[in-house]
């Protein structure tokens, strides 16, 4: 691979081309350009390449492709979980959080936490939601207050369930799939849960300005099930007046737990 040998790095030249350099630094580049033919050539090549890239990969189409990919990725594939209300599991999770040893996610995958809690055998799966604070992280309990802009991290512990889906419903009736990242028109299957301990999804979630509440559900089972089943149940619930408290109407064999955040 060709390495930068000049005084001006690729990134610096890109920033000059983008007009993002501070005036003093931009002036330094301009002076270099007056005397350095290879630098002028590199800058010209950036201009030619810009046009070629935008021509070959048109922005509107690329923007759509990126957005679609963004919808698919959260939650990834190949893992899933089952849930139980956080308020039941909070003491265990709190202990686990204190004692946990994190295994850093590789390649953007989920993070697995090993703690005293993860070594417990049996029991139902549960959901955990953490909020980023200025000075750390806070675990949220059921019915905690939350507001627009809160950045949340969702996690779970699978316990004995093998498959699961995490989805949320807000006060506007918007349904968001967190694991898998989309219901794919109901065609998506529940991913397999990572049963080795407590698991954090590999992305964070920022609350928007939807009013009243944000409710997270973990639906789980010993066997795979369709995301469409869960999606229909959540959408049915969304139109009810007791959407913030009622249970999902799910087929036999599927377990559910939820965590409610009250919007301020």
């Amino acid at each position, binding site marked *: *691979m*060709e*390495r*930068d*040998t000049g005084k001006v*790095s*690729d*990134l*610096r030249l*890109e*920033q000059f*081309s*983008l007009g*993002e350099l501070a005036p003093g630094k931009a002036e330094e580049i301009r002076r270099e350009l007056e005397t350095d033919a290879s630098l002028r050539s590199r800058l010209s090549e*950036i201009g030619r*390449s*810009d046009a*070629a*890239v*935008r021509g070959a*990969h048109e*922005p*509107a189409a*690329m*923007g759509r*492709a*990126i*957005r679609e*990919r*963004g919808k698919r*990725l*959260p939650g990834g594939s190949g893992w899933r979980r089952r849930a139980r209300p956080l308020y039941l599991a909070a003491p265990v999770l709190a202990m686990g*959080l204190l004692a*946990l*040893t*994190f295994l*850093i*996610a*590789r*390649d*953007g995958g989920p*993070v697995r*936490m090993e703690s005293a809690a993860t070594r417990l055998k049996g029991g139902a799966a549960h959901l955990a939601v*953490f909020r*980023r604070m200025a000075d*750390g*992280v806070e675990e949220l309990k059921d019915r905690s207050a939350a507001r627009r802009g809160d*950045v949340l*991290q969702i996690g779970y512990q699978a316990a004995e369930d093998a498959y699961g889906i995490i989805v949320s419903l807000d006060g506007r009736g918007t349904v968001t799939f967190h694991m898998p990242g989309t219901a794919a028109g109901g065609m998506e299957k529940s991913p397999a849960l990572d049963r080795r301990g407590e698991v*954090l*999804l*590999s*992305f*964070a979630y*920022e609350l928007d300005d939807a009013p009243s509440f944000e409710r997270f559900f973990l639906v789980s089972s010993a066997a795979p099930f369709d995301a469409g089943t869960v999606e229909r149940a959540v959408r049915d619930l969304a139109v009810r007046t007791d959407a913030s408290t009622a249970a999902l109407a799910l087929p036999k064999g599927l377990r559910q737990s939820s965590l409610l955040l009250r919007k301020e």
Partner: protein
Amino acid sequence: MALDVEALYRKYGPMVLRRCRKLLCEEEAALDAMQETFVRCLKNQRKLDERAPSSLLYCIATNVCLNVIRAQRRRGRTLGDEVLAEIASAEDVEGAALARTALDGIFGRERPSTRTIAVLHYVDGMTLEEVAEHAGLSVSGVRKRLRTLRTRALAAASDGPPALPR
């Protein structure tokens, strides 16, 4: 406010693609890495407000490419050059981080990885000062991270030559 990914791509897409092409030397992999870079931006929109988008995108693209190179190397295939492959496979200093650091990372507050910093310095030829500026770190912080990475790489390469430039 939702990120206008189309506008972001229109302005920065060519730069990101050039970066991915340079590191991966393969068009299809570079295009895929470019998309992944913007997807990560969608997930961490706040970060775009905090730093110059070009520096941030450049660092994200570098990290994405290193992940691709490392994954390919595990499959017995080398993308990019050997130094890059060594850096990509080097144990990340952040791997030994404390629990809270891990959560910060998941929340999208992570700084550029040490591997990314190593590429900026060893492969791109940036000075420590330039790396510090683009990575949002102090010069001493960059120096410390590189020293730690080099030590680990040397330890890991006990049956071979030093993996990283001195």
